[in-house]
């Protein structure tokens, strides 16, 4: 390769177009990324940034246009071809094998072999340790990936890319799973990579990070490039305007609400881990009428287990959950999940689950199946055991109309709806019950800004109307925007419970990673 000066045009996308069926993901995109620098690719969900990077990484082949690296035109049909040319991508959802160890995951697919086809374990471990030290990415080499926190898993992913001798490292929304403190660690790692001469491309929708870390910014909207420039002349507002195409006003903060009675009383609830982490080891909290309470915690903190226990989906090992809705429902270690869920629903709980595809809706069947979820005990929808399909379809139509959902009708299948629309459908379905308490898990995860805004507005409306809302989320920005009070779960316990006004992002981030407040500063 001819010697190229750092900063010069290195990766050149020329007129890239790509369509998936009728969806034009990339429309004549031309972008340049300089060598040895950090380039951020920003935009809303669905803007095309992921797709563009996937073209570079060899995951997707463009319909038109070309990619040039260091002056040579490249055309990748597989990720392996891209890897051979020095391109590696770290995905948003970790692509590691949880049941294998760190070193096994790092060498997987690029293994050093000894005699015959024997795996050279000794050499493999040694290579991994060397790599880890060289790039200052400490990882426990023999630990199983499933026992590691997400931030460490991400470092394993980066090492995996480096093991394949990547010169170009693509990071897809790397900070969406990290707390503020962990983000610092990531940016340090990026600096190290840069010092070794790597070119970094990272996808994000978080404006502050982009402005702080990237030298070069490319903005995309609806499959097109809107701007591609140095970050010198950018500020937050102009960047936001470029991303969305108009001025975005934040949701109005309302004054502290007048609180009513306690509707949810969680007392010393403990539940063993459903995935990684210690589970919830004894948590207590209360939610009153009129409040929006946020529940923050990284994956593995116990937040997930606590929410499942409150929703009645898992029976706690110890402690109790008392819901004071239209009638009182008590859940403790002697309860039965199916009965708890039905009782909670009947007493006025609404639940927006984290997984809208596998939990919140019934895939492969018309929407009315999903519309009557948990309501078949009502005579309106089911009489003498026979389902009244007509009223079920009418309900689905009502939800679609009231929730401003884009769907072809009550017979459409959930998988034909976009993520945002399905989420709106599920949210509206729960709201139709006029819940006394609405439990919302990751309510705006993976949906576009417009739909996200609508959902948040609806949640706040529930509280304004006298209901109560409990929002579980890993998105601190969202919690700070929406909630009146924030609770942080770490290591299976409640470590922070404060009104919104008294919280800062750093304080919350510190609590989420178990650091002292002074350490966070």
């Amino acid at each position, binding site marked *: 390769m001819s010697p190229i000066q750092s900063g010069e045009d290195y990766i050149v996308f020329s007129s890239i177009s790509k369509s*998936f*069926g009728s969806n034009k993901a990339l429309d004549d995109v031309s972008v340049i990324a300089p060598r040895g620098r950090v380039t951020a690719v920003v935009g809303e969900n669905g803007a095309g940034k992921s797709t563009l990077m996937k073209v570079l990484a060899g995951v997707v*082949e463009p319909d038109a246009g070309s990619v040039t690296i260091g002056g040579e035109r490249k055309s990748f049909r597989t990720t392996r071809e891209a890897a051979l040319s020095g391109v590696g991508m770290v995905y948003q959802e970790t692509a590691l094998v949880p049941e294998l160890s760190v070193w096994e995951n790092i060498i997987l697919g690029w293994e050093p072999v000894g005699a015959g086809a024997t795996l050279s374990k000794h050499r493999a471990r040694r290579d991994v340790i060397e790599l880890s030290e060289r790039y200052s990415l400490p990882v426990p080499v023999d630990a199983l990936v499933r026992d590691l926190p997400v931030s460490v898993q991400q470092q394993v992913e980066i090492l995996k890319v480096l093991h394949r001798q990547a010169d170009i490292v693509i990071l897809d929304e790397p900070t969406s799973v990290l707390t503020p403190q962990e983000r610092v660690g990531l940016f340090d790692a990026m600096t190290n990579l840069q010092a070794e001469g790597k070119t970094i491309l990272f996808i994000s929708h978080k404006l502050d990070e982009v402005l702080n870390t990237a030298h070069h910014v490319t903005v995309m909207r609806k499959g097109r490039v809107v701007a591609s420039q140095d970050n010198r002349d950018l500020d937050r507002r102009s960047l936001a305007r470029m991303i969305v195409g108009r001025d975005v006003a934040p949701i109005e903060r309302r004054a502290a609400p007048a609180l009513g009675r306690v509707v949810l009383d969680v007392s010393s609830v403990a539940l063993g881990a459903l995935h990684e982490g210690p589970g919830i080891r004894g948590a207590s909290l209360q939610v009153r009428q009129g409040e929006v309470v946020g529940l923050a915690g990284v994956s593995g903190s116990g937040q997930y287990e606590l929410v499942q226990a409150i929703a009645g*989906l898992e029976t706690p090992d110890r402690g109790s959950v008392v819901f004071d809705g239209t009638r009182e429902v008590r859940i403790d270690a002697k309860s*039965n*999940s*199916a*009965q708890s*869920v*039905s009782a909670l*629903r009947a007493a006025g709980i609404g*639940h927006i*689950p984290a*997984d809208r595809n*596998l*939990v*919140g*809706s*019934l*895939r*492969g*069947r018309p929407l009315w*199946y*999903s519309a009557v*979820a*948990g309501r*078949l005990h009502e005579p309106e929808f*089911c009489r003498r*055991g*026979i*389902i009244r*399909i007509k009223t079920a379809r009418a309900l689905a139509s009502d939800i679609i109309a009231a929730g401003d959902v884009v769907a072809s009708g009550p017979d459409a299948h959930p998988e034909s709806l976009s993520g945002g629309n399905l989420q709106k459908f599920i949210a509206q379905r729960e709201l139709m019950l006029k819940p006394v308490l609405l439990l919302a898990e990751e309510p705006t995860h993976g949906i576009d800004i417009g739909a996200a805004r609508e959902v948040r507005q609806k949640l706040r409306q529930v509280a304004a109307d006298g209901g109560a809302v409990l929002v579980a989320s890993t998105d601190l920005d969202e919690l700070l925007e929406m909630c009146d009070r924030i609770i942080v779960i770490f290591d299976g316990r409640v470590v922070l419970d404060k009104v919104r006004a008294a919280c800062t992002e750093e304080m919350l981030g510190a609590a989420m990673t178990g650091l002292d407040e002074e350490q966070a500063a």
Partner: protein
Amino acid sequence: MNKSSLTVSLSRYVLAAVIGLLVASLILQSQGYPITEFLSVLATSTVGTPYAFLDVLRWMTPLLLSGLAFLIAARVGYFNLGVEGQIYIGSLFSAVITHVLPLPPVLALLVGILAGMAGGLIWAYPCAWLAKRFGVNEVVTTLMLNYVAVLITSFLVKQFFLATTVNGGTIQTITTDEIEANAVLPTFTPYSALNAGLFIAVAVTAVAAFVLGRMRTGYELRAVGEAPKFAKYSGIPVARRKFQAFLVSGAIAGLVGALETQGVLHSFIAGSLDNMGFNGMLVSLVAMNNPIGLFASALFFGVLQNSQLVISQVTTVSSYLITVVSALFILAFAANPIQFIMKTWRARRER
């Protein structure tokens, strides 16, 4: 369903039928028979004599219910491969009770049927319980219990229930004594084994189709099988419904045994119930696990089953040929090559 997807679905059946037909004809031809021999055998066995078609209907009874048994378990995601064994146990229960208890006409019939259903349910119980309580894979346990069922029924009959011949000796085959006349399901003509059991089979299947399609139970079973997390979220007791469906599946398999005993065999005869369970699985799969499709599917396999005897009478080829045809039909059907071809064609355009 729009027109093009209807054509695609139909072509799936046609392709499978063609493959089955082709192989059968090839095998027959290799033995020196003309290429159309298979088709002519099918025609003879189905409509050759005035009563041939009645025999086809006679086979529909066990095939329909066997298919239903498999279907109900499949609805909740279980592969009940133990229908075979559950039929055996059901048949034995029915034969013994109806022989031992002298009862008035309708009551004797009902008691025999209920005994058969109980037998099937009891035999399904351990597999269902192991699956529910411990998560033990039901495919293997049901298969194992099939072998045990055949062995244990033989043992029980030889030990306790062996039929006695007219002059007081013991019979050579493994058979029980004849059942009470009051428990026998009446036939329509003396020339065919077709009996009133068909009405029961059709009625049960129709009721099941209604429950599965229009009633709350059907909704819950469907949710449990297709989207268990959604079902749990909706407040449906997932494990309990799966368990209940498995038991019902066993009971219906037992019903098959009872109807065979009381309708055709009039006792328990080892070896005469072979393959009813597996054929039922084939019936259900071809019906795409849709209860209404069971009728057509059972008819189709009834034709095949009926031709089995004729094959070995008219040709020198073993009656197992029909087994081969059925199996190949299923393989071609399940592998769905047309869908694959269309999918790759579409994907190639996209990439």
